[in-house]
């Protein structure tokens, strides 16, 4: 945008022009003073027009993707807690990944515990993630790897 936009005319601009005008207000002290004197709300618009950090936006996308691809997501009955459910699913997925990666790594390094391992009769370790059928909204995930048994129970009704 060339020149100085009229702060009082911002409402008449389309979305793109309005954004440009507000960005100009962020750079131009003279225009900012004029906006401040005319109507404080113009300046509020300028301040709020600053972009939200990309990592925050990515966290939103990741939480939503985890929830909708989990398919079993159910809105919480307790209204005050509903906002935390999406975050809980993302946290559960992260926890599962954090636990599985080191365990899987150990399984791929047979030489590490060679002295303790039986040479021929060692049982084949079982590894993987298994969703166990559960009644109602409760989800049970079996994360057993080898001799290490880990079962994760997710109950969306619980407070975190």
């Amino acid at each position, binding site marked *: 945008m060339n020149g100085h936009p009229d702060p009082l005319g911002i409402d008449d601009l389309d979305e793109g022009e309005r954004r440009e005008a507000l960005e100009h207000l962020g750079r131009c002290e003279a225009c900012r003073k004029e906006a401040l004197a005319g*109507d404080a*709300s113009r300046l509020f618009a300028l301040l709020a027009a600053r*972009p939200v*950090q990309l990592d925050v936006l990515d966290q939103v996308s990741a939480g939503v993707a985890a929830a909708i691809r989990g398919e079993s997501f159910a809105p919480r009955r307790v209204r005050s807690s509903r906002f935390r*459910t999406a975050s809980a699913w993302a946290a559960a997925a992260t926890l599962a990944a954090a636990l599985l990666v080191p365990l899987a790594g150990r399984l791929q390094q047979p030489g590490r515990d060679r002295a303790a391992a039986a040479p021929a009769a060692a049982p084949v370790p079982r590894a993987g993630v298994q969703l166990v059928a559960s009644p109602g909204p409760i989800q049970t995930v079996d994360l057993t790897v080898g001799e290490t048994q880990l079962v994760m129970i997710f109950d969306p009704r619980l407070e975190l």
Partner: protein
Amino acid sequence: MRDEADLIREAARGDAGAFEELVLRKRERVVRTAYQITGDLEDARDVSQWVFIRLWKVLGRFDPGRRFDTWLYRITVNAAIDLLREKGPRGTLQPLPEDPSALPADGAPSAEHALDLKELQRAFLRLASRLAPKQRAAFVLREIEGLPTEEVARALDVRESTVRNHLLQARRVLREGLEREYPGLVPPELRRPRTEGER
């Protein structure tokens, strides 16, 4: 780039990929709106996630004859107001953290310029926290998101005259608070004389 109407239609049929692209397009305005109402970035993130998950579930009920953004704003505003009411009044609100990509294209702002903006943002967040949730929501949709008054009325499910009244009150609270509590931010020669009705 896919047409938005197509994305909405495909997402409504259960296409998760289309829905995630829709989230990508709308997430900034949803987070920004939620942040301006709750005044807390963590809350805004939680509200935004809830909004999109809710949207995924109810998208099949969307009437294509209506404006999608207005519908999305409505869900966002209601969720943010609910959270605000549950948590009660706030203390000090935190400005958005600096984003390096938000610097002006023609170079970094001077220290004085950056200080001014930061200080102004704190002042406005503090003053805005005194507005009633609906007043704040009306102000955010009209002044920040740039929605026409009739769209704001639809998003808030109130009459246009109510929106105008909310805006009038919000502007008055902000302007008076700024002049009274942050006089240094408004140069004396630029202060607006009060009208008879404002005294």
